């Protein structure tokens, strides 16, 4: 539903026909290419003879995590009309997933050239082990202030995954919030629905995740919530295959939805 709406708004944004809008999305698997610059390296990838810009090296708190030489990368992006960066057409937004298996043929490092500069503001060496997503004071959920007044209501938390991985690495804050909300709302049930998904490639057949990915994601989350102190018997997990990919925002299909159903509220909570 949401995805369709997003697609619709994109269409509106580009005020273009459906066919053209579809062309704006590019999903491909290829070797990443590193180009050095005077500051940090930038990351490119080649697809059908054209060079695309993915992003630059920053640190663990950045939105973009660069790819790995030695591995192919799955790029899911939107072709933007911005000026080229590092010689590449800018994909923005872009999601990348490093494919797990080694591929020694991905080993291209290009030297710095004066004509290529990147938008980089130094922020000290990392990997910033305390990125903001792990540092939110107290880990209080956004819903907490309201919870003090009104009784807590059923709330859905969503986390997303890189292709073929079962750690929701970038979503610790959301996991923490879900766990905190489950505790403060005395959750009767924490329902986890984890999906295995596929990507509609710009060229060629759908790229499908490993069969057991949904199950792994579900079980990993069950374990995580137990470690975060939720009673195991309140955690209910299921796994499913996501619906068919349409090539627009397929990375949003690789997800798990965590529904926290609040339980009976002690009188003190309501009056606090």
């Amino acid at each position: 539903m949401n995805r369709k709406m997003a697609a619709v708004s994109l269409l509106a944004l580009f005020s273009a026909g459906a066919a053209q809008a579809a062309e704006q999305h590019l999903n491909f698997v290829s070797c990443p290419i590193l180009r050095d610059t005077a500051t940090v390296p930038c990351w490119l990838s080649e697809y059908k003879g054209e060079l695309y810009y993915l992003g630059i090296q920053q640190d663990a708190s950045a939105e973009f995590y660069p790819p790995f030489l030695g591995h192919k990368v799955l790029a899911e992006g939107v072709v933007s009309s911005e000026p080229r960066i590092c010689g590449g057409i800018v994909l923005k937004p872009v999601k990348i997933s490093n494919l797990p298996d080694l591929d020694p043929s991905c080993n291209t490092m290009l030297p710095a050239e004066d004509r290529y500069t990147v938008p980089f503001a130094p922020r000290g060496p990392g990997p910033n082990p305390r990125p903001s997503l792990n540092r939110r004071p107290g880990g209080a959920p956004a819903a907490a202030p309201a919870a003090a007044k009104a009784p807590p209501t059923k709330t859905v938390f969503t986390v997303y995954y890189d292709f073929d991985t079962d750690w929701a690495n970038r979503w610790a804050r959301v996991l923490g919030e879900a766990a905190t909300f489950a505790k403060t709302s005395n959750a009767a049930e924490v329902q986890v629905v984890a999906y295995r998904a596929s990507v509609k490639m710009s060229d060629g057949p759908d790229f499908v995740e490993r069969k057991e990915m949904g199950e792994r994601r579900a079980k990993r989350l069950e374990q995580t919530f137990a470690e975060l102190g939720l009673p195991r018997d309140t955690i209910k997990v299921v796994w499913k295959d996501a619906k068919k990919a349409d090539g627009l925002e397929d990375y949003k299909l690789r997800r798990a939805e965590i529904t926290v159903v609040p339980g009976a509220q002690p009188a003190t909570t309501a009056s606090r």
Partner: protein
Amino acid sequence: MTIDRASNSNASRRRRTAARAGVGLACLSGVLALGLAAAAPAQGTYGKSLWWEAGQGDVLPAAVDFDTPEGAVGIINASGPIETKDHPFFTALGTNGRACVTCHQPANGMSLSAQTVQRRWEETNGRDPLFAAIDGSNCPSLPQELKSSHSLLLERGAFRVAAQWPPRDRNGQAIKPEFKIEVVRDPTGCNTSPVYGLGSPTPMVSVYRRPRMAANLKYVTNSGGAFNAKNLAMTMPLDPDTGRPVGLNFMADARELTLKTQAVNAVLGHEEGKAAPNPEQLKKIVDFEMQVYAAQKMTSAGGALQYNGGPPALGPAAMRDGQQGVLADYLDNPVFKSFEVWKTAAPGETAQQRVFRASVARGFDVFFVRPFWIRDTQHINTVGLGNPAKRTCATCHNASLTGQDLSAGWVDLGTANTPWAGDQPDLPMFKITCDADVAPHTFLGRVIYTHDPGRALVSGRCIDVGSIVMAQFRALSARAPYFSNGSAKTLRELVDFYDRRFNVGYSEQERQDLVNFLSVL
């Protein structure tokens, strides 16, 4: 025999003490001249000996310096002088005559240098409890009187660490490892031994590791957040006493959650105790560890390191006064503060000091701002930096004042795994074959040859094979060799390792500057 040996070594200790008094005092007055009155004079209550014997019973002063090959290492007890008589850190609690202090020597920055081990062998003809068969020999099944049976301790300063296999999780349940482990080469005989090996009734993996500093531990035990910053979806275990997440940043594989569990296992293991220390003893051990600080205090070429107006990160007082849990950077708050004062000449400096201090200040810059391509390191390149990443030494060594990684610090730098570790024939070699359906090691794939599976011995995960928790690097000059397996005999060898590992291309000058910089920490 045993008694003879003990009295001999006591006598030789006293002789050394006497011989050293002059040097020690000279160094002290040099320090005092620079306006520093931290170190207590040697008033005969403790020996300035290089060896601290279990049960020796002297007072460890509030501040004291010990000579090292390169100068002096300083120890500070923030809670005041330590009465070591009957103190559980300094007293043998088990059956083999060892105490914690046996392997965590004040004169070696609360660690132990291979040089000290060798001297101890000479002094006691190999009969010191240090060489106890259980882990002070390559394998307990070897003839203990032979020097060759203790070669890894003598040459690398490395003790045998036996990890039960498969490992247990936080609740004591056996973990199903993601890989198969085979012994490819077993120079010590322990991994194929019917008693101690992988095929024994209590299967074990024996690896060989250096003791780490039992000092400055407020930094090392600093608690992170609820999640592991290296894998943000992985929760951190909780300290059973405080309910707070632990930091998972000590021991080469972070197998111990707290200093308390560490001390219990050290007594049961290293000291071959029949029972765990009692709560009072445990408290005393941990209290001691949390207030003792160590750092290099003086170098022969550079003179005093801890003085008013000197580089603010140097000396044990900086460790005592510093703030733990601070993520440093290279711009505003460098890991080891600032060496700016050593860039220009100061009144009273000798020519030799000037040359050395200028070199250290340059080495500081090499450490912090000289970029190179950090490549193929699991748990660094994989945590948002990409592979390779153009960064510096301080990228991994980012915790203020210790140079550890502030987050749970296990990283596959290549010190344990081939190809980077090379083939070190005196160490065991394991072949790890990861299951087909698990995430492979990102840069080595599913078949890995390793001298020490590191964190994977605890997690059972393929991705952790060869990842070693970085140790704090203070008092380095007092405790060679380096890296968990002691593979870098000198700081120069360590720097050369990095140059090879990351193809840095350091100039001769940069290497020397980096070595000098590390030597004053």
